[in-house]
């Protein structure tokens, strides 16, 4: 075989492996997608129907769990992004021993086993209500817990942007008479925006994904994860098939569109840069 032919085979084999892996990864989700269009309790075809999709929004348990999950994820991701971005800037200017301690704190939060985190939060919330501070179970406990364990991920997402930031920008803001808060809000935040968006997205997903921490601190409300877990034993409602398909398709389309738009924008700015260059 010639070298060129060898290289060609390598490329074909490589691409085949990649697409095969994608196929395996998506197979379970596609099977569920197909069976979302039939109403039988087990995975057997009993005629085409879109009943399950309307059930998602009318099923009282599922629709309320969906609302709870989204509210908690949005609230905790927003809080985590705000606190985490501020912390990221603050930690940047901390001196050594304290800086290391705070970073170790973040690392513990990220690496700690979920179940340890979950129990630790539960014991804390019990102790807090034992000393007489009212802290209702449910939204408050879950939003606090999710915010706390997602902040370190926001810090990780913002840090690379922060390192590339021109330190004089902050000085400039102050020199032009803006206070610290205003400088942060009007000068630094816009510069860190892409990192903050990434951080928000990570925090939001982690909150949606979370099961163990929610399970231990949910009080009387259910999230999607805890609802699925609690209904395993009594057999999963087929409505979950439609729910999982809706989530799957939404995520897939959103991510692909977002990706297409951002790569289009990158291409445009590249072309613009080249055009400007040739004018020079």
């Amino acid at each position: 075989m010639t070298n060129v032919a060898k290289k060609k085979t390598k490329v074909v084999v490589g691409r085949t492996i990649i697409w095969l892996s994608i196929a395996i990864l998506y197979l379970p989700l596609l099977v569920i997608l197909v069976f979302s269009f039939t109403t039988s309790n087990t995975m057997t075809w009993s005629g085409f129907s879109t009943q399950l999709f309307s059930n998602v929004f009318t099923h009282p348990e599922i629709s309320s769990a969906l609302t709870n999950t989204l509210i908690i994820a949005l609230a905790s991701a927003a809080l985590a992004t705000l606190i985490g971005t501020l912390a990221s800037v603050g930690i940047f200017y901390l001196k050594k021993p304290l800086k290391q301690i705070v970073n170790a704190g973040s690392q513990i939060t990220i690496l700690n086993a979920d179940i340890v985190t979950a129990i630790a939060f539960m014991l804390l919330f019990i102790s807090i209500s034992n000393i007489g501070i009212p802290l209702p179970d449910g939204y408050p406990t879950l939003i606090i817990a999710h915010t706390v364990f997602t902040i370190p991920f926001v810090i990780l997402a913002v840090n690379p942007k922060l390192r590339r930031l021109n330190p004089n920008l902050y000085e400039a803001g102050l020199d032009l008479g803006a206070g610290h808060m205003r400088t942060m809000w009007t000068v630094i935040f816009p510069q860190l925006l892409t990192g903050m968006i990434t951080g928000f997205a990570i925090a939001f997903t982690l909150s949606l994904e979370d099961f163990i921490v929610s399970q231990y601190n949910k009080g009387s409300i259910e999230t999607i994860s805890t609802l699925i877990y609690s209904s395993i034993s009594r057999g999963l409602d087929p409505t979950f098939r439609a729910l999982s398909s809706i989530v799957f398709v939404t995520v897939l389309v959103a991510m692909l569109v977002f990706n297409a738009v951002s790569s289009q924008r990158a291409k445009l700015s590249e072309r613009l840069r080249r055009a400007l260059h040739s004018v020079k």
Partner: protein
Amino acid sequence: MTQIKKLQFQRKHFSYPYIVICVVFVVIPLFILAGYALIDSDGNLSLSNFVDLLNSATTYMVFGQTLMLSFLTTLICLILAYPLALLLSNASINRSRTIVLLFIIPMWINFLLRTFALRELLSMLGLGEGYFSVLIGMVYDLFPFMLLPLYTILSGMDKSYKEAGSDLGASSWQNFVRVTLPLSVPGIVSGIMMTFMPALSSFAINDMLGDAHLFLFGNMVNDLYGLNMWNYASALAMIMLIFVGLVMLVGNRFNRRNIRSLGGAKQ
């Protein structure tokens, strides 16, 4: 000069809300956890919870099974993800970031929904509940966490190292073993950490895909908690915490040594 010092002093204040949060919601809970773990059934301060746990054969069985399953999961993920990451980062095979994104998208779907989908698929294929199904479920769930750090480090690798290798007469195998593999160690370490750690505490996948034979650390804590034996559950959680701390130390040491040796290579 004094003005700049004053400014810096102000700026680090932005981290204070987080520091307060860390103390109240991360450090204090761990002390409360330790407190519960150190109080026996009579309400006295003692190590009896730990002694009971360490004297029970169940504890060792549970730890053994959990470590084995987590180890196998991590190993299979690594074996599957490394070649794939190599292919994805190879410019002549894949230039598209969208394809990489396709591997990450399932992470955005709730893992219980994904496990539920997998369970339906496995039962259609005639694979019932059992160890093998749990293993498939764990690998399916954690695979992207292994792939991503590997892809990041392999695609960001300076091509000139490999070119230098082949210029000096290394075969592509030698080039891989002596150049690419050592340079990718930080990615391997973070991939292992990101797969192994969540594997240690997972129990929902076992509940959904396993039969009654496999009893994991997460199951044990969860059951103790369900039986209102919080002190034992806390002691068990403390043991896990110490274990996580040790893994963290080893991981950090590994990464630092690697950064140092990379620095050495550059000089």
